[in-house]
């Protein structure tokens, strides 16, 4: 297997090759390249697709790949670290939606999901993003009840027959004034007619960012440390974030074999809505993928392996307690896919596939002395999640107007975890009793899930189309929902991947979530879809056994914990029923176009989602309030100017069980300009022009500085604010 230690020499070679090739003025060859992709670029069922060109403005100045999704209808982002936002689709977030990077379903290895899937790919590497916000076909979904997100690198390129070798390179850098963030990326590619070798690397770092004003008192973060200003968001910095990837692709006729080895290393990433920070993350993954266009259709086979070593501790803005509170996690994921798209006839396509995934997790916290010793604390020991899926999907083009898709998927999910221990089981009330109770449980669970999707698209003409669909989708609990066992608040607070500042306790008896969704989409536009367009999607989802939370009332949980209407609390995951419904509206209108002044286009986006717990009557947590974006886009040659106005309503539908915090409504103005030359692109922008102070509705509770290890060490009631005014500039070149 390719070792990442060999990346540097390979990179050096490639860069040298690139430089020499550039000196020979081979850039003209760029016009004779062909894509190695075997996939048709068609708008997916119930989905939105953004190709590299549309992503350009965002990806140039972003260091968080999830932010590339924020202009897609129905998508919102949970705040997390500077490079680790968690996407939510129609109110369902994190592993309720299926996120794939180059076909791999990368797994987080952290009780706080700090190393989220999209943090494993640098924005500069993203070639396309496909979001299934409504009904996800079974060939794309699985073990998820929300939508699906597919992020793909740009496909490998090959020289045409008879032409010289193709040599390409690209490099870029960005700077963000707020937080003094900067980074670079570069890559090189050498390709012949049947071989493609590539290397890319990117790196970024940032200091703490600042809000648009004071949102908390000035105070020290660490014992004896410097005072943190009232407008500075503690624990929002990151450093040493580096992504490297080396790729090898072989093409022969309709066959494409790709081997990619990637490494993501993060030296430090602060999390203002978590009680500790990521002090190291070393993720390596290897992906071997075959795609072939055969006589009978398309075949895809993939085997991938992921190894993650993850460390957390108290960052520089938090109390260190003398020894810190180290938490170490290691996880391995092995997955495989075999899928065939069989062309049965001009009318019918049959997709068959099977997927397998085995995920193992060791989450232990080294002893530091006192009641946190003499042994390591085993949060999840030998956690296992094993999944075997099979699906059949039948797509039929009944007529030029009518297309239907019907799919069935079976997911068998087995989870288990080994026995655990506290720091000192002799401290029975603190650790021992809970550990003994957990160890006495039968912890293995096997879920037999099945999904069904039925979709239909009606296109009566070139100016309109309609989609309607129904889906039954299932998702088994993740290991951190079933197996964290400690009711001691200090431990429970560390198990939280929603950023609300509360502590979470697992529930071995959790059942899979089953969602029933109906979705209807109407799309009206002019024939070219350039002058005007309006798209509306309405949806309703009823989730049986939705995994929500209840107040912990056993073991070390007090009556006060059950009754508290403010403050941080301890919660246990529990199955309840829920419903979500909403509406996405998006549109564009060409306002004017002249030869001298270019075109002026107005765009709009409006999202509304409502989430209710039907068992308790409570609101679901972290549901984005009504929000809208309106932009005026001016294009003239290579110049693009955008004035974006964003308005978000107050969040007052709050989850009472979590003591979720209210956030006020706000509006922002962002200005962006870009200019593209043949070999370069310059982006300049001012975000939050008026330096407005606002709380991010999905930003979570601010626990980013001070004594974050205990329940009330940091006062409850402050939401993580959004970023204040920032001047962004990025320059990217390719040759």
């Amino acid at each position: 297997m390719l070792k990442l230690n060999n990346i540097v020499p390979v990179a050096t070679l490639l860069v040298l090759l690139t430089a020499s090739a550039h000196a020979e003025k081979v850039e003209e060859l760029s016009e004779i390249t062909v894509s190695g992709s075997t996939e048709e670029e068609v708008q997916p069922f119930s989905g939105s697709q953004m190709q590299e060109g549309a992503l350009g403005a965002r990806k140039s100045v972003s260091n968080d790949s999830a932010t590339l999704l924020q202009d897609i209808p129905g998508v919102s982002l949970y705040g997390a670290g500077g490079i680790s936002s968690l996407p939510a689709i129609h109110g369902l977030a994190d592993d309720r939606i299926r996120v794939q990077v180059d076909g791999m379903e990368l797994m987080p290895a952290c009780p706080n999901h700090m190393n989220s899937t999209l943090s494993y790919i640098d924005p500069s590497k993203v070639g396309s993003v496909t979001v299934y916000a409504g009904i996800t076909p079974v060939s794309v979904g699985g073990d998820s009840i929300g939508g699906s997100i597919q992020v793909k690198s740009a496909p490998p390129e090959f020289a045409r027959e008879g032409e010289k070798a193709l040599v390409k390179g690209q490099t870029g850098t960005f700077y963000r004034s707020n937080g003094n963030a900067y980074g670079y990326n570069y890559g090189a590619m050498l390709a012949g007619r049947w071989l493609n070798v590539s290397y890319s690397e990117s790196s970024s770092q940032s200091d703490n960012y600042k809000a648009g004003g004071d949102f908390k008192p000035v105070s020290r973060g660490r014992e004896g440390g410097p005072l943190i200003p009232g407008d500075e968001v503690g624990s929002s910095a990151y450093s040493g974030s580096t992504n490297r990837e080396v790729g090898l692709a072989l093409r022969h006729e309709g066959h494409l074999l790709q081997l990619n080895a990637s490494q993501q290393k993060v030296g430090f990433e602060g999390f203002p809505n978590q009680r500790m920070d990521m002090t190291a993350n070393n993720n390596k993954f290897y992906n071997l993928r075959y795609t072939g266009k055969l006589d009978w259709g398309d075949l895809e086979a993939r085997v991938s392996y992921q190894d993650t070593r993850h460390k957390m501790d108290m960052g520089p803005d938090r109390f260190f307690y003398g020894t810190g509170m180290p938490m170490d996690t290691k996880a391995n994921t092995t997955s495989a896919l075999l899928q065939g798209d069989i062309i049965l006839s001009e009318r019918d396509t049959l997709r068959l596939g099977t997927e397998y995934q085995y995920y193992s997790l060791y989450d232990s916290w080294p002893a530091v002395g006192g009641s946190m010793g003499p042994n390591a604390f085993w949060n999840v020991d030998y956690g296992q999640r094993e999944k075997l899926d099979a699906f059949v999907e039948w797509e039929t083009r009944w007529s030029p107007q009518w297309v239907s898709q019907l799919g069935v998927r079976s997911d068998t999910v087995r989870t288990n975890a080994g026995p655990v221990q506290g720091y000192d089981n002799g401290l029975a009330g603190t650790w021992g009793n809970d550990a003994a109770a957990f160890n006495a449980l039968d912890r293995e669970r096997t879920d037999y899930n099945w999904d069904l999707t039925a979709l239909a698209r009606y296109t009566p003409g070139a100016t309109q189309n309609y989609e309607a669909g129904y889906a039954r989708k299932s998702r088994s609990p993740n290991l951190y929902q079933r197996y964290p066992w400690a009711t001691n608040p200090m431990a429970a607070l560390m198990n939280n991947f929603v950023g609300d500042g509360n502590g979470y306790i697992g529930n071995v008896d959790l059942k899979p979530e089953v969602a029933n969704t109906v979705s209807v989409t109407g799309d009206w536009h002019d024939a070219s879809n350039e002058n005007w367009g309006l798209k509306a999607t309405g949806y309703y989802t009823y989730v049986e056994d939705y995994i929500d939370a209840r107040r912990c009332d056993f073991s070390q949980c007090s009556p006060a914990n059950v009754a508290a209407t403010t403050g941080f609390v301890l919660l246990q995951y529990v199955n309840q029923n829920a419903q979500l419904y909403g509406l996405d509206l998006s549109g564009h209108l060409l306002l004017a176009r002249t030869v001298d002044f270019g075109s002026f286009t107005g765009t709009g986006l409006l999202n509304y989602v409502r989430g209710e717990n039907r068992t308790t009557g409570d609101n679901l947590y972290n549901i984005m309030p009504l929000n809208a974006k309106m932009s005026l886009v001016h294009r003239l040659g290579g110049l693009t100017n955008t004035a974006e106005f964003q308005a978000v309503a107050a969040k007052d539908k709050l989850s009472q069980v979590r003591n979720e915090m209210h956030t006020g409504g706000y509006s922002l103005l962002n200005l962006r300009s870009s200019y593209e030359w043949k070999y370069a692109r310059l982006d300049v922008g001012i975000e939050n022009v008026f330096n407005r102070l606002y709380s991010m509705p999905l930003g979570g509770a601010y626990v980013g500085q001070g004594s974050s290890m205990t329940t009330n060490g940091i006062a409850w009631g402050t939401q993580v604010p959004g970023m204040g005014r920032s001047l962004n500039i990025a320059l990217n070149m390719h040759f």
Partner: protein
Amino acid sequence: MHTANSNHTCQLVGIILTVLAAVSLGGCYGSDGPAVEARPQTISFGAAPGPNIDDATATVSATASSGLAVSYSSTTPLVCAVNSSTGVITAKATGTCTIAANQSGNSLYAPAPQVTQNITFNFSQTIIFAAAPTLSLYDIATVSATASSGHPLSYSTTTPAVCSVNSSTGLVTALSAGDCTITAAAGALQATQTIPVSTPAAVTVPGAPTGIKATAGTTSNSVSVSIGGTISGGRPLTGYTVTSTPAGITATGLASPITVTCPSTCNGYAFSVFAANIVGHGSSSALTDVITTYKVVETFYEPDTQPRNSIFIGSLTLNSTTSAVSNLRGILSEAMTGSQIAYPDDNMTWLPLNYQLSAVSDGAGGLLVTTFMLNTTNTLSTMIGGDGWTPGSGFGLYYGFPTAPNPSAGGVGNAYARIYVNLDNPAAALTQTQIDKLAYADCAPGGMMGAACMTGTTAAGYGSVGTMSGYPVSQQTTKQ
């Protein structure tokens, strides 16, 4: 555009079905990998010791199958204590003493399940009188006895024609010449003391009263003055007069105790007493300060160790004349220890705090008094400033960090509790401002989390809540 080919289609379907079948038969399921789980171990006790009657010590012995050292703890702290490493038990009272043995494991062995052993201690009961006072006719004096069980005694006389006795105070009044026999009883156990009552040779004024004690009264502006003995002068006493220094307060009464009512407060006054009989009044006793013993129960709510809280139970002596507090001592619970049982049925570790080393004014008529486990105030870190103990200082790290060993690893750890004393009315309920000034710190091994000690403070009083979010919620002060 691709074209359909039925043969290839069948081949592909076959491949997929074959893979599915193989996987579904378990071939692809991951085999059990190595777990971090350590090897189990068990603990066995040796034969239980059988202490003889009145034996106050015994030794238990337990061994772990791993060969690792076993630690001992008493789950019945009112009956016995045990040395955690040697297993030597020190009995405190008659009853069943339960010793728990634990072995917390290491990198190779998992923690062992706790095992317990019961040992019964029996102590014979005795009542011992102090030396008998001298009695002449009409004198009053105090008898005193103690029970080995520590139980309170009640007094009675078997010679009521000769003497009377106060059942609780033991104050005896000689009524006629003869032998006065006093019985002290604790349940069925009794002892007697006989005191001869003589007739004085001459009639005189009474002597200066002795054994004068002045304690806080039932109201905030009263004092109760008790008299331990008076030589009558051969004639029945007609009364007592209490006078104050500074002058201005006088009270009279026929018998002890005498309640003195002060205009607004009795603080700052000392008192003396003289007695009178038909001949006249005698000389005054020495000045006596108003000294009262109070019991204090202070509770810190610990949200992160429920249902156990940090509780200080202690006593103090308040000299209202000099506004001084002394002898604040007591015990402090370690809320991270013990089972999930709340006080008072808990089995938490309780630290003795016997060194009152600080009493400072709060500037509003009260005293903040602090008692320590060790005879030093060094408790919290001075690494980044601070005096080593003031609540809110040292960021909760132990004294000497980082060079000194961690108290949980053999280093020296101190602990303290700070209470509030309302000098005007010690038994009054505390205001929130006063509660905000209560504090504790526990840097003993059972209070350590890494290098941080458990502390309890409020943000209003000291800038933040304690290191485990603990904060004071109440203090009850009652007169003993």
